[in-house]
């Protein structure tokens, strides 16, 4: 395995009394597609939110692309990261949220050009061209001038994916991207994510309840339970012959909810 692009070392995250990540060790190789599954409250989303610097950690170190994310080297030790460091590190990642979080007062095009223009310093023309290419990729070229509220949930999520890609991240984080969608709209979003999964360079970290989908696109499945990885491995192994009792119970409950 290459030098991992993401590495969690004994990472602890607490919300008050509740320990959400419990000395978590976790690695992702460059270009790897990893799906995190597990019961709610197991810390799945927190892993993504810590990476996107939306949640601070209480202990441990997270490395992204060889550098500590929440720390900076300082006289041989690590000190808490400055905002400048966090901004440099954020550049490597893009995130897709459960509730899309598009900017409602901006057109689709402006949603896609805002950050490339003001963060990457692209010219309006360059940003526009990049946005148009990405809208074509997600099949929404005709919606550039629409406002998010005029789009279906599935369309909004595809715009949100394009918006994250416009920053050319090395790592894409998907936080339950289809959980807020009506069932008939899930497919169009999954198709876009799958086409991204075929990109060899892009590292993908996905939290989802779409088990069939996870099985098809993932290199590895991690089963989270109580803030740790209880079991991980290739999809066939996890889905066909899980070793742990908790994994079996969870998969059974998800795949056969009526029993």
């Amino acid at each position: 395995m290459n030098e991992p692009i993401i590495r969690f070392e004994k990472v602890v995250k607490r919300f008050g009394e509740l320990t959400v990540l419990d000395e978590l060790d976790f690695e992702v190789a460059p270009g790897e597609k990893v799906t995190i599954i597990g019961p709610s409250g197991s810390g799945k989303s927190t892993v993504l939110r810590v990476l996107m610097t939306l949640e601070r950690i209480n202990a441990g170190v997270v490395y992204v692309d060889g550098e500590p994310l929440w720390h900076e080297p300082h006289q041989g030790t690590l000190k808490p990261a400055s905002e400048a460091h966090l901004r440099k590190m954020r550049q490597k990642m893009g995130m897709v949220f459960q509730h899309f979080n598009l900017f409602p007062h901006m057109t689709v095009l402006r949603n896609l050009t805002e950050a490339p223009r003001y963060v990457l310093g692209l010219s309006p023309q360059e940003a526009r061209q990049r946005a148009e290419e990405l809208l074509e990729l997600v099949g929404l070229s005709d919606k550039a001038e629409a406002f998010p509220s005029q789009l279906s949930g599935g369309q909004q999520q595809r715009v949100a994916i394009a918006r994250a890609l416009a920053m050319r991240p090395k790592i894409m984080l998907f936080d339950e991207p289809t959980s807020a969608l009506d069932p008939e709209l899930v497919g169009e979003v999954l198709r876009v994510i799958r086409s991204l999964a075929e990109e060899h360079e892009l590292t993908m970290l996905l939290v989802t309840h779409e088990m069939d989908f996870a099985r098809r696109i993932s290199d590895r499945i991690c089963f989270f339970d109580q803030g740790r990885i209880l079991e991980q491995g290739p999809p066939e192994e996890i889905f066909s012959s899980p070793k742990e009792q908790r994994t079996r119970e969870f998969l059974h409950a998800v795949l056969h909810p009526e029993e």
Partner: protein
Amino acid sequence: MLFGIEWDTSTSWAFAWSILPILLRGMVVTIQASLLGFFVALGLGLLLASLKGVPLKIIAWPAAFITEFLRDTPLLIQLFFLYYVLPDYGIVLPAFLTGALALGVQYSAYTAEVYRAGIQAVPRGQKEAARALNLSERLAFIHVILPQAVVRIVPAMGNYLVSIMKDVPVLSVVTVLEMLNVAKIIGDRTFNYLIPLTMVGALYLLLTLIASWGVRVLDTRLPKRGIPLK
């Protein structure tokens, strides 16, 4: 006679007509005090709202206390304090400025709350999305949060402008010659209160209707396409 303008008491209509220019002088003062007070309230309210949002408790708590104090004490007390107590400490302001300042200070407690509520009504996911796109805090605020907050803030601020206008007569107790005070002086000197007071009421109605209409027009002009407003 007031402001060098004589009144004509021959008939009621002549009287009304002759004191109208005097009352309009008072109305100008009322408008000036309202606007000055309003702008003080907008500025000071923003400051208080920002300070209350600071994570450091040593800053946030005093700001919260001041806001609460201003909101829960009568305007008249604050006005007397500024007018009678400040000169003891060498700060002597003209009555008009003192009055406008008192209005602004009192209403800053309300506008601070409007700012806070307007910004908090923007869903948390917006800030997170801005951060995930690596927008700076400043840019996220200006381009993402503020445009969505402003459409909630402006209508509420407009209501406070109208409230401030209606509170201006309080300034008459510190000798400011605003519209009501002018009407009262006319009444004192002519023993006719009915006509000047009725006219002040009508002029006030006109003033607040225009102000409300202005706020509505401003509100319809705000760019709010797509923003979900509950």
